[in-house]
Every structure is written in structure tokens, then in C-alpha cells.
């Protein structure tokens, strides 16, 4: 394989791995903060314990997030030297700001971890969780602006010789793709972590544990989970509107929408036959026009308007569908649970509901992966849309294959070891034991 292909595989693999831990890094601090704050406010030690236990797991995942993030940061220069050379002129501002966000987060994470009982007032300790949230969410914001720039480059002019002039770094950072993308990336990270934490508690309840600790955890995460799931859908809808206006080929490829037309239907599932005809799909009339432009009569650009060699691969349709289906599922299950709970129905704790919450966690991670692969593959063949193609950006050095092999091993090892360390950490020290040790009365 040529270096460009290998670089793509290595980049995709590293990012797909990083995003799992990064998502946890962005989302979990919010819940730690909510739990500790609520616990202090309600004087309920259960919630404080929740925050403590979540933090303990969080450090392990942060560590993997940090090392894989460092990898991807350096790899961008190693694997995509021309890309970074160009981008260095244009978009290094958010990358640079991101490191400050990391700094901020890292410093306060250290403080938060080791000062549980050091302050006279617990509120002070709780306050140190705020900078962690700011730091991690801002790092997601900044990196997302870089990614958004790759989709809709802005803030410069290009001369005929390909020289960049009249640079406006802030405009490059707040390019047209940035707002909807930031909203969607953040909200999806939050909803994913809500389901991750809910799933852990659901798992214990399903295993027959009776402690209210777990029920409180589920209530807390599902209330926030529903809010975040709704926000994610709204933000996803905004992303769709953004695409229809600025990157129509991506939306068209995801929707198998070939001819420009009004009253465009949304296509779910299905497959393409030899003649590129859509078969076996569910068609929702007008829905694509509504998703794209907010109006059933609106015109949506079709894929045929674009030169053949600038069309993204068509399999992204399934990724888009998968993401939307999961998004809908997350809203439904959390709403169902909360309605039952609100109506004081015992059924809220029915094993089937719990199982439904449990699988919400892997599903949301799947949605994150599908969403990113859709966003990235949907940009093909461009690395920076309209400016630089992927093959012109890749390194020309040999040995990418060796690195691909070594890093694949590393990621497998990290995944296995991190999981087993986490399992051991929590199994050796169950919440019931901790409640007893800390003298919390049930």
C-alpha cells in the first residue's frame, strides 16, 4: 500500500480510538460536578460517593485520552506534513488555544483528585471541578473548529499560484461549519456519558443489587440524559441544515439524493442496485427538505451536480441512518423511563427498561463513531474541502506500515488493559463496601 493509504488508516484508527476516551473526557466531568454539587446541596453522601467513584474511573480513561491525543497531535505532523504546513498558517490558533485548555484541565484535575478532604468547606472542592469542565469542553470546542475548517475553509484568500494571503485567523476559526458542529459534538459527548454512567448503574441493578445508590445514579443521569439527547437531535438537525447550505454533496451522498429536487424525501435503509436506483428503502416524503432547509417545499441539491471524482463514497448513507436511529432511540428510552418514574410506576425499574438503558451506552458510542466516520469520509476526496486533496497531503516517507502495526498493537493493549484495570478497580471496592466504610447509613 502507498504511504497515503497507510496514513489514512493509521489516522482513522488513532482518531476512532481517541474519540472514545476524548468523549468520556468531555462528558464525565459534567456529571461528576453535578453529582458532587447535588450531594453537597442535598447533604446526601450517596451523590458525593458517586462523584468520587466516577472520578476514580475517570482518571484512568483520561490517561488513555491523553496519550492517544498526544499521538494524534504529533501524528498530524508526521503523517500529514503538507497539510500541517498549510494549516499551520491558517488554523494553528485554535490548536494552540487547545493546549491552554489542556493545561487548565490538567492542573485542576490534579487538584481535584488529591484534595477531596483537604478543604474546610466541601464547596471549595466542588468549585475546582468547574475548571475541569471548562478545560475539557473548550478543548473539544477548539479541536472541533479545526475539523470544521477542514469542511468549510474560511478566513483567507488564495492567489492563482496557490499562495495564501489576507489571513484572518478568527474567521478561519469561526468558519461556517463551526457553530453547528461544536453544538453537536458537545451535546453528543454529554449524552453519551449520561448513558455510560447510567448503564453502569443499570448493570448493577440487573445483577440484583438493591442499593438506592444505583437508583439515584440512574435518576440523575437519565434526567440529564434526556435533556442532552434532545439537544443532540436539535444540534444534529442544525448540522443537517448547515450541510444542505454549505456542503450539499455530503448530505446528498448520505441521503442517496442524486437529482436536485424540491419536496425531497428522506431515505432510510435500503440498498443501491446496478443502476444506482434505491431499492427496499423507507421513504419519508418531504423529510429531507425539512431536515435540510426547514421547509417541505425547499430544493435540495443532488449529487449529480458534482463532478464524479469529487463525490464521497455512498456507504456513508448507512452511517448517517445508524446515527439518527440511535439518536431517536436514546430520546425514547430516557423519556420512557422518566415518564414511568414520574407516574410512580414500579415498571420504571423493570429489567427490560434497565436493559434498554444498558444498551444505550454502547449504542451512543457507536453513534459517535458513525457520526465521525460519516463526517470524515463524507469529505472525501478532500482533506481541506476545495483546497487540498488527501493524496497531496500525506507523507512520502516509507515505514508508515511499521508504525501502523506498532500502534495497532498499542491500541489493542491499551483497550484491554484499561478495561481490566477499571473492572478490577471497581470490583475490589463495591459501592456497598464503601458506603459501609465511610459510615453512610442506608
Amino acid at each position, binding site marked *: 500500500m502507498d504511504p497515503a493509504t497507510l496514513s489514512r488508516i493509521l489516522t482513522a484508527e488513532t482518531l476512532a480510538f481517541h474519540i472514545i476516551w476524548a468523549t468520556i473526557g468531555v462528558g464525565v466531568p459534567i456529571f461528576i460536578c453535578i453529582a458532587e454539587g447535588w450531594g453537597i446541596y442535598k447533604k446526601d453522601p450517596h451523590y458525593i460517593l458517586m462523584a468520587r467513584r466516577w472520578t476514580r474511573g475517570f482518571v484512568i480513561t483520561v490517561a488513555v485520552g491523553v496519550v492517544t491525543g498526544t499521538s494524534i*497531535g504529533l501524528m498530524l505532523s508526521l503523517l500529514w506534513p503538507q497539510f500541517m504546513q498549510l494549516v499551520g498558517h491558517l488554523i494553528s*490558533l485554535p490548536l494552540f*488555544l487547545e493546549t491552554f485548555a489542556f493545561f487548565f484541565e490538567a492542573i485542576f484535575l490534579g487538584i481535584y483528585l488529591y484534595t477531596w478532604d483537604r478543604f474546610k468547606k466541601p464547596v471549595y472542592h466542588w468549585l475546582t471541578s468547574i*475548571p475541569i469542565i471548562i478545560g475539557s469542553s473548550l478543548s473539544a470546542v477548539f479541536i472541533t473548529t479545526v475539523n470544521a475548517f477542514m469542511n468549510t475553509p474560511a478566513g483567507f484568500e488564495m492567489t492563482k499560484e496557490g499562495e495564501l494571503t489576507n489571513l484572518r485567523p478568527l474567521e478561519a476559526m469561526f468558519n461556517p461549519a463551526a457553530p453547528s458542529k461544536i453544538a453537536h459534538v458537545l451535546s453528543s459527548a454529554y449524552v453519551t456519558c449520561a448513558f455510560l454512567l447510567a448503564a453502569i448503574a443499570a448493570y448493577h441493578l440487573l445483577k440484583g443489587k438493591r442499593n438506592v445508590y444505583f437508583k439515584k445514579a440512574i435518576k440523575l443521569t437519565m434526567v440529564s440524559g434526556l435533556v442532552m439527547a434532545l439537544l443532540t437531535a436539535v444540534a444534529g438537525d442544525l448540522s443537517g441544515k448547515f450541510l444542505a447550505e454549505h456542503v450539499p454533496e455530503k448530505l446528498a451522498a448520505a441521503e442517496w439524493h442524486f437529482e436536485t429536487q424540491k419536496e425531497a424525501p428522506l431515505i432510510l435503509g435500503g440498498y443501491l442496485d446496478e443502476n444506482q436506483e434505491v431499492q427496499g428503502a423507507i421513504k419519508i416524503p418531504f423529510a429531507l427538505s425539512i431536515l435540510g432547509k426547514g421547509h417541505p417545499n425547499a430544493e435540495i441539491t443532488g449529487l449529480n451536480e458534482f463532478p464524479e471524482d469529487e463525490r464521497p463514497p455512498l456507504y456513508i448513507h448507512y452511517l448517517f441512518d445508524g446515527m439518527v436511529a440511535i439518536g431517536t432511540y436514546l430520546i425514547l428510552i430516557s423519556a420512557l423511563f422518566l415518564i414511568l418514574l414520574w407516574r410512580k410506576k414500579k415498571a420504571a425499574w423493570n429489567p427490560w427498561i434497565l436493559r434498554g438503558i444498558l444498551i444505550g451506552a454502547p449504542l451512543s458510542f457507536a453513534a459517535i463513531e458513525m457520526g465521525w466516520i460519516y463526517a470524515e469520509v463524507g469529505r472525501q476526496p478532500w482533506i481541506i474541502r476545495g483546497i487540498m486533496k488527501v493524496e497531496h497531503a500525506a507523507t512520502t516517507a516509507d515505514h508508515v506500515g511499521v508504525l501502523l502495526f506498532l500502534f495497532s498493537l498499542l491500541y489493542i493493549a491499551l483497550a484491554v488493559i484499561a478495561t481490566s484495570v477499571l473492572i478490577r478497580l471497581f470490583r475490589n471496592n463495591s459501592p456497598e463496601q464503601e458506603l459501609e466504610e465511610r459510615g453512610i447509613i442506608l
Partner: protein
Amino acid sequence: MQLELIGITILWTFLYGYLIVASIDFGAGFFSYYSLLTRQEHIINGVINRYLSPVWEVTNVFLVFFFVGIVGFFPDTAYYYGTALLLPGGIALLLLSIRGSFYAFANYGARKSRTYLFLYGMTGLFIPASLSTVLTISEGGFIEKRGEEVHFLPWELLTSPYSWAVVLLAIVSVLFISASFLTYYAFKAGDKKAMEVLRTYALSWSGPTILSSLFVFAALSQHNMQHFENMFGLAWMFLLSLVCFLGAIILIWRRRALGWSFVLVMLQFAFAFYGYGISHMPYLLYPYVTVQSALTHSTMGWALVISFIAGLLLLIPSLFLLMRLFLFSAKYVRGEPK
């Protein structure tokens, strides 16, 4: 000041910061493992862990800051170094990843594992070795431009005495910096036993530090005469560095003012590091890339400088808080329950 000077000063300062904090961390990992082998771990590990646990992530960010910053201020370096350093850079990265994650696994995880500590300890020596070769490569002679393509010459690097001298210096300095800091930290913790063990480490690595730096001078004069002559012009900096070193050793030897002795060690490396850096100017990669030729557009450059200043305003108070809580809090350092 000109933009390129501001840029390189910022970056060099962060690299210096990384040199100090990472050395402490790398060395600590090694001592931790070494003490396990010599069955002294119960004496010194408490001190090491109390310092490292809250700060290891901060250490990593210094490095991230440096490589993000250099691509920001000098985008051409991404092209040259990126292409040339794929393999060595990739390996350094692999080692860093192993180290970071295993630190967390060993410390926050459920049990101490010998394997984790071994990985953690040994990577602490290999990482500085592999990172320091980037400085070696910047001296020129290991990257060649043929037409439009950039090529790395690994064989030249592996057979160059200069390159090995730098590797040696890097490893030895890591151990020296780390030991002298931990001596001070153990002293603050009032942990006499640990302090004595660490003090002998510091003293025994001091001689090799000086010897290997002389070795580097000698090898550089063979490798890049122009740079060597520039350094000669800055001889006073290197002499000051030597004076600081001697002062530090005397204090450690006499068990006096250990805090100041560590400040002297920091100054020793500051003088040498900035002396090296200044004499290296204006080249980022000899003879292809200079700070002027690689500089980003000035709008971006100033945007970076402004954001840097804003960032510092945020960071300095936070770092100060971190130090107050973990470095200068006598209670914490002693490991007393609160």
C-alpha cells in the same frame, strides 16, 4: 522584538520547562524501579508518588504545547521534521504512550504491578534519549533535501559520535535533575531516610553530567564547527552554568539549603540550554530552515502571541495554586492526613 524572536523564545522556554518537569518525572520513574530492584522502594516511593501523582498530566502538556506551538509559529518545520522524523518520532510517541498510560494504571489502578513499574521506569530513560535526537538532527547532516523530497539519513545518525554524546547527556541529566529535586522534596517531607538515599543518587550522577557535557562540546566541534564557534562566543553562559552546578553540588554535599541547591540546578540547565539555543540561532534545521524562513504569516503569529499572553494570565495563577497545594504545602508533602 521581532515576531520570530518572540516565537522562538516562547517555545524554547516551554521546552526548558518540559526539560525540568519531565526530567523529574522520567528520573523518578527510573529510581522507583531501581529501588524496587534494590529493595529500597519502601524508603523512597512514598515521596516520589506524592509528588508525581497530581502533576503527571501537566508534564505531558508541556510537550504538547511545544510541538503544537512550533507548527503554529513555524509551519515549515512540520514539513521538514514531519517527513524526516516519521520513524524516530513514531517510536518516541509509542514510548510516551506506554509510559503515560502505565503510570495511570499502576497508580490509580487497583494494584501495583512489577511489569507496569518496569515499563514505566525504562521508558523514562528511552524517551529522553529519543527526544534528544531531534536536537541532534537540527544540527544538520542527518536530513538531506534531494530535489523537492526530504530524506532522513538514519545510518549517519546512528554512527555519529555527536548523536551518542547527546543521548548520553540527556539520560544522565535526567537522572541528575530528578535526584536533586527529589532530595529537596524528601527533605521538605522531613523524610531523612529517603533524603539520604536520594542524595547519594544526586551526587553520583553529578560527575557523569559534567563529563558528558564536555563530551558533547568536543563532539559538536567535530560535527558543526560554525555552531561550536557561536557557542564559544557565549562562553560566559556556559561558565555560569558550571558555577551553578558547583554551587548546587556543594550544597547537596553539605546537606544545606536544598531548595536553593535545586534552584541552582535549574539555573545550571537554564544557562546551558539557553546558551545552546542562542548559539543555534537562526537555524531551526541547519542549513535548510531558519526562524525567518519558516515563520508563519504575521497576522497568525501575532494572534498566537496574544493568545499566549491571555493563556498565561490563566495558567500562572492556576499553576501557583497547584504548587501551593502540592509543593509548598508542608502538610501534604509530609503525607499527613488532613
